[in-house]
């Protein structure tokens, strides 16, 4: 029953631009899935709209390509309705931090066991390169008529303060690193964000492969947190002090940008997932998709307690 990379490919034509970072992400994702050897019927890719949003069509598992910015609530509904599923959500930076920001933020409050991958290319790719929420103020990519007038969002910080329990960054062309991070995120119980630096050669001539891989002051611009001995993980989730320290460290790290750009896991904590909290509420683990409510086309739910409540005596 084991599967290989080839099994994960569809014959649907991949129509990303030559050199697009998305290829690296696709490879990493598929490799991660190969490493994990999950029950593929129970894995689902949910995506938003954008170049990034097309990803599910390229992977031979169930793929739900949703609406612009709404992939997170779609994924939420899927996961809650059938918690047996492994749900991997894919969005562009415009998709997730722009139009989808409200869902992105509020998802943190739930900590559902979903993995969110953001293909962060600094532009709205599929609509021809407008500035996305991650493009910094004053930058002018080749697709812009005038320099960007908005500040960038610091999505890692926002995720951390919003309640994401696994927050990481990786880089599209470091397939090995990205694969590892994706595996960790999928295995993490709770809501994970991986913000992936993704060159878009067609529109973003600033954050190119060359830029990210450039050697500045004798070291590569992109460096790995783990190489620095950075420890993102809260060991004792009841230790308020430790949490605070880890959060502060992570936020500071997430603000590093320029000559040095860190990748890796910024923050990780094990907290009860929404699914676990639901057990408190319902007294047991629910799987709504498996609920039985009819037998031979007859309703099988006993609603007599509800009728009692409204019966006239």
């Amino acid at each position: 029953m084991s599967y290989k990379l080839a099994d994960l490919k569809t014959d649907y034509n991949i129509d990303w631009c030559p050199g697009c970072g998305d290829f690296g992400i696709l490879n990493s994702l598929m490799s991660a899935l190969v490493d994990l050897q999950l029950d593929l019927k129970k894995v689902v890719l949910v995506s938003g709209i954008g170049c990034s949003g097309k990803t599910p069509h390229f992977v031979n598992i169930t793929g739900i390509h949703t609406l612009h910015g709404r992939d997170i609530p779609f994924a939420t509904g899927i996961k809650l309705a059938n918690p047996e599923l492994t749900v991997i959500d894919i969005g562009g930076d415009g998709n997730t931090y722009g139009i989808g920001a409200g869902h992105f933020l509020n998802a943190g409050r739930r900590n559902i066991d979903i993995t969110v991958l953001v293909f962060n290319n600094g532009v709205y790719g599929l609509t021809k390169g407008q500035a996305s929420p991650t493009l910094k103020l004053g930058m002018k990519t080749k697709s812009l008529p005038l320099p960007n007038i908005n500040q960038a969002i610091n999505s890692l910080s926002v995720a951390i303060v919003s309640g994401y329990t696994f927050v990481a960054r990786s880089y599209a062309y470091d397939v090995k690193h990205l694969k590892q991070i994706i595996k960790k995120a999928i295995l993490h119980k709770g809501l994970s964000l991986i913000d992936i630096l993704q060159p878009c050669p067609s529109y973003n001539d600033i954050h190119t492969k060359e830029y990210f891989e450039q050697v500045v002051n004798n070291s590569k611009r992109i460096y790995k947190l783990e190489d620095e001995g950075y420890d993102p993980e809260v060991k004792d989730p009841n230790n308020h002090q430790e949490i605070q320290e880890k959060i502060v460290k992570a936020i500071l790290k997430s603000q590093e940008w320029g000559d040095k750009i860190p990748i890796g896991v910024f923050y990780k904590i094990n907290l009860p997932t929404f699914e676990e909290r639901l057990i408190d509420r319902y007294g047991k683990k629910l799987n709504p998709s498996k609920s039985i409510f009819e037998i031979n086309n007859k309703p099988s739910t006993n609603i007599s307690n509800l009728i009692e409540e409204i019966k006239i005596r």
Partner: protein
Amino acid sequence: MKVANNFTWLIGGPQGSGVDSSANTFAKTCASVGLFIYGKREYHSNIKGAHSYYPIRISDKFIRSHTDNIDILVSFEKETLLLHHENVVQKGIIIFDKDIAFNKEGDYLLVPIPFNDIIKEAAIKFDKEKDYSKLQIMRNVISVAASLALLKLDFKHLEKVLQSVFTGRRAKLLDINIFSASLTYEYIKSNSFDQKSNYEIIPIENQKERIITSGTTFTGIAKILAGCRFQSYYPITPASDESEYLEAHPEHEVLVIQAEDEIAAITMAIGAALTGVRAATSTSGPGLSLMAESQGWAGINEVPVVIFNYQRGGPSTGLPTRHEQGDLEFSLYAGHSEFPRIVIAPGDIEESFYLTIEAFNLADKYQLPVIFLSDKSIANSIQTLYPFDIDNIKIERGKILSEDQLKEIIEKEGRYKRFKITDDGISPRIFIGQGIFWNTGDEHDELGHISEESNNRTKMFEKRMKKMETILKEVDNSLKYRLYGPQEAEYTIIGWGSVKGPVLDNLEELNKYYSINFLQIILLKPFPSQEVLEILSNSKTIISIEMNYSGQLANLLRKEIGIEVNKRILKWNGRPFSKEEVFKAIIDAINLDTKRIVCNSGI
């Protein structure tokens, strides 16, 4: 002659002062002695202080509407008196606080009540003098007791209902309330007010089993029976009562999720539906407006999802707690471009139950979004109903593939095609977790992959839209419309949704003068043109009645079957049609020369 068992009682007061619970207590007591009730809540978009009122109509027959006329008006503050006394009928009763100077010319029974004295006495008796201000809430129970005493109903009936009301946390309040109520009874009797009262309740023995419920509650129960196990919502009046009802019943394991907004609510429900669970969301106008885009996604991906829209006064925030049937046109066309969708509207609380179950069946069978178009009047009114017949209820899930069937298809055809083109437009469905398929909001091929190819586009669009024809072919007539009164009539009243109650409550009486029937449209999309055309071609004059400005159903009729309604009865002031008003409006429609009869009753 005394009036027995048929009258309207109305209580009013500031929001948050207990008007609703008084009305419920009164209604339950009347119902408990075999009577039928219909109660309507009117309240402001406000939490405390604004004027609210609640007429309860009582009858010995099954009733479905409220009246403008008031037989017994109950108030414990001035505003209610001022606002409502003009609607009290001759020989009617007005119950008020004796500390308020009030008088009214004419043949009325004015009953001043010493609320403060009664409360004080009760406080002393129960050693709660320091809670005196909190005990003001007993004005409610005193009001109800005074009313029932004036109706000469034995105290024990009230006592029994109070026992069922004051339970749990509130059990400790039972005794003092019963005591106050009994003081009130004594007060009424000792002043012989009951002797002067023109009204009475005569219990009806051995009534069949009945229930008393509201639209949101009954819809909630129906959802549970229908197998809905996922409901996402965002708070909004008057829809959220229904979600909160489900939330308060975790034993039935409906996963209720309060989303961050209505877009999340519907997209969560759609996502959930993809796993096979029956999923719904409940909302009102503004929320429905936010769901336009997502409906298109459910449409193109053929996902069964049910949207319960409780219409309220619009546009925009509008009149959040008031009534309107204004969302019909929007529901028919919400979302850019075209995709298959069903719109159905229940006519009352009872129909909400059956149609809720059917809504899920339709969604599953035709794999599309269904809009269930209820309204504030149905949502917030209460009514006595006979228990329903569960035996006739069917659950139909449509073309769903079992594991074996799926295997067989894959063996035969190489792979499973979620959007296989079929004659009836419906493709066999599998759930996430069962096998591999794709969805996308882009136009797609049979597999579910994006396709811009022009022939595929033509065919796939047609396949989807073909479902609309299939529905009209397959769906039972009872889900399309109901015809009440004579099969053929000179005048046909046509309406949808909650106008049903006041029209039916007038139909018998109207047929004494004219030959009139009432055609209620239930299935609004796809429109049952053939059936409706046939019925309407039998009548000389068609009169539409709806609670909106332009006559949206009348316009739809013209669009769908080319028939011009002769007269339109319309109302948009936020208050549901009353019984008397509908009677007069129909008489006017028949006799006057205006095309639009605009109604305006209600405070």
